[in-house]
């Protein structure tokens, strides 16, 4: 039994951001990297299924350059059995899904888990695209998962306003996992050290088509206007605020 988890090494910006000279990306001096939070939850969910069923192989897959192996090593340290990197420089979700599919399909997984979205580009479409490429059913924004390891899984989806949509889905399927489904475990120093020595399978990226989009410019948006300065003493200002609130509540 195999569970594949697709993960991404995301870029994390601090309070201060500078862009590269061509204005297409954030200057790498201002970036840190981490395993995407949603993906960490997906890995945790896979590990819990493995623990619950007593058996299952958890395989972490990413598409990216050598640096992106940091995300895979974190998955291995958490307890994933194997890791695969598709050597690729893609960034848009469709090309990424394409690259991932080339590594996921040969595994013939029983379940594929992705994060709902990545915290850096926040497209929320890689998992859905991947399901299409793999020809598998998919359920997005999963908050709870019940599955016996074969046959249909019962999946709780998070909707607006705290509503829950409970669906049944045949497996194999692609599920995109929402944060809050679990508290991802952390890796001990020993697990981190062991993960550093583990081999990562390298897969050549498929010949890709055109990217689904390209970055034309990255910039800090100018500060918004439209702030209205209220004048007067505190009680005058308070009544003006009350008028505005009443107006907006209409």
């Amino acid at each position, binding site marked *: 039994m195999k569970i594949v988890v697709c993960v991404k090494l995301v870029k994390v910006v601090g*309070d*201060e951001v500078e862009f590269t000279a061509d204005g297409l990306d954030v200057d790498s001096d201002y970036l*840190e990297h981490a395993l995407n939070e949603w993906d960490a939850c997906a890995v945790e969910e896979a590990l819990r299924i493995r623990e619950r069923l007593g058996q299952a192989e958890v395989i972490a897959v990413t598409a990216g350059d050598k640096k992106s192996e940091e995300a895979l090593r974190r998955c291995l340290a958490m307890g994933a059995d194997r890791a695969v990197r598709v050597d690729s420089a893609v960034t848009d979700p469709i090309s990424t899904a394409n690259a991932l599919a080339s590594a996921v399909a040969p595994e013939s997984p029983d379940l594929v888990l992705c994060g709902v979205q990545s915290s850096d580009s926040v497209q929320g479409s890689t998992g859905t695209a991947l399901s299409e490429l793999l020809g598998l059913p998919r359920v997005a924004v999963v908050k709870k998962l019940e599955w016996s390891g074969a046959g249909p899984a019962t999946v709780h989806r998070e909707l607006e306003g705290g509503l829950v949509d409970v669906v049944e889905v045949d497996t194999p399927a692609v599920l995109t996992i929402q944060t809050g489904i679990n508290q991802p475990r*952390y890796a*001990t*120093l*020993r*697990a*981190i*050290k062991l993960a550093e020595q583990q081999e990562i399978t390298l897969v050549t990226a498929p010949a890709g088509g055109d990217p689904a989009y390209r970055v034309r410019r990255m910039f800090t948006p100018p500060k918004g206007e439209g702030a209205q300065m209220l004048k007067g003493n505190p009680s005058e200002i308070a009544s003006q605020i009350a008028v505005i609130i009443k107006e907006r509540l209409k």
Partner: protein
Amino acid sequence: MARDPKYDILFEPIKLGPKTMKNRFYQIPHCNGFGSEKPLSQAFFRSMKAEGGYGACCTEYCSISPESDDTHRVSARLWDDDDVTNLSVMCEMLHGYGALAAAELWYGGPHAPCMESRCVPRAPSQIPSDFEHLTYPKQMDKDDIRAVQKMYVDAAKRARTAGFDIVYVYGSHSYLPQQFLTPYYNKRTDEYGGSFVNRARFWRETIEQVKDAVGHDTAIAVRMSCDMFMGEPGTQLERDCLPFVELVDDIVDVWDINVSGISEWGEDATPSRFYPSGRMLPWQHAVKKVSKKPVLGVGRFTNPDLMISAINGGQLDIIATCRPSIADPWLPRKIDEGRLDDIRECIGCNVCISRWEIGGPPVICTQNATAGEEYRRGWHPEIFTKAKNADNDVLVIGAGPAGMECAMILGKRGMRRVHLVEADDDMGGIMRWIPQLPGLGEWGRIVNYRKIQINKLKNVEFHANQRLDANAIKTYGAEIVIVATGGYWATDGLNGATHDVIAGADASLSWQLTPEQIMAEGKKVPGKKVLIVDNDGYFMGVSLAEKLAMEGKKVTIMSHQAHIAKYMDFTLESPNQNRKLHKLGVEIVVEHYPTKIEQGKVHAVHVFDEEAHDKVWEVDAVVLVTQRRSNEALYRELKDKVGFSELKKEGVNAVYRIGDCVAPRLIADAIFDGHRLAREIDSPNPEEPLPYKRERRVINMAGAKAEIDEHMAAIHAGVR
């Protein structure tokens, strides 16, 4: 990151008479235990602030004569040329950073006990000190007045020779010039007493004489308290201070304005327990309105927004800081560089001051473990060397003050990976609940600062909700393990007064409680009448008394000591804390210790009652604030049960412990302990502190031998 332009005003130069200060950050005179006799410690301590951007730094109170000898406390001194040499080092270092150097010329009058010099201090009137014990001054006649004024002039000249740019004629805190101004001290009927003009005469003449002597190239500062809070006899703003400002404004280059006298100078150095930042602004503002000269003043300013509002609001020209400059000597620089997140804000606990009150050991700071260690240990609060064993991974167990500090400094020293692992669901340890005691909210800054720093450090990971046992630690994969599991309050009444448990004390019972049971575990205090046994003598007992009284309990607090919460005398918290407890109707029982606790009753005896008459307090609940103990079970298991050789097989090369887990002491000590280990993690034996430089006179053997030979020769010659 660049500085926010709204703070630009803080970085504008300002003229102080013949001198120009490069910005508006001024380190007010404050003690550090170094004086003139540990000149390198003094110079390195002050210049750390200059390096951190302060435009001017002052000595502590600087005695002008052996008649103003504060021994056992440590002041700076400008008694002779050797003092000039010693203090010149401080001036030179400050100038190297582009900062001005100031000397706070001080004559204490009756408050100077002269225990080293054995001189007799002089005063306006012969009344013993309200601050020191048994110090009687000589009442000054006019010759005495001339003599003491000459001491000021001579000391001012020596200050200038040493390199000082600013000299004070210091009155605040009830010292000599202000004694003359104040009827409480001045009962004279000659032209130096009585009317305002007469009471102001001594101070005015002294300022004039100092101005004449050095004023052409040295700025003259006057530090004045604008309210002693003692009613009619004390200094009064309207009656005394504002007229005095008008009287001498022309010859003063900068005013340093505060409040309080000496016997309750916690009204000036205000603990955060009682006062917010900027509490003296009304008085400073009042002087600012009358004076044409720059006005500076303290107010425990840590927040740059408050600083600019004080300047923009016309209340101050210069932001003076004492305690915030100890907690973070780089405060100006961090504002300048837009690093507000990195400011280590003073918590207003006053343990720095406690050291001076105790008698002058080196200054310490809860927030800044490097305070006072700049020279003797070579510690820099902001610059860290990469550890020689930085290729090690470290596991720190327990994210209380010591564990957080240690993990943070190890991170800054570039250890490969540091895991800070905590059983609770967040960082803080005891500092998660201590700031919830009445008035102690600002103490939460201990956690906030470290949490922000730890979150920024890429090589430090924090993991909550993980209670590791010895086996998990063994196989965790760390080369270095640091146990910081803290301490706990004794549940059996064990205490330092009797060195025994209290019969019947047992905090597992529903009606007996320890502080952490109340504050952290939510154990309810049953009934109405509560007796707190306080053998600890610091903030815990009285804080719980205040809290429970505010919740409507009838509270008794009992100490074996002569007064309650003795350490709070040193932190200047005692007077107002006692007022609060009295107001809340808390019964304070001193010089008693409990002999037996039983349901509904506490039996106690007076410490000096040889017949041990049994006294009984009827109670519904008992709170045991008797002593703390180290939470060392995990450390003992690692060391005694698993054994270091077994740990070594798993790759653990060292196990250390820090903080309350070693011995429960001040929070400042726990943080120091964690810091010290991290600073010395690559020393030959990190468990033992490296020796520090002891700044002292080591005798010149040749010179000493000559003196001994001379002495012996005199004996042989029969001269003696």
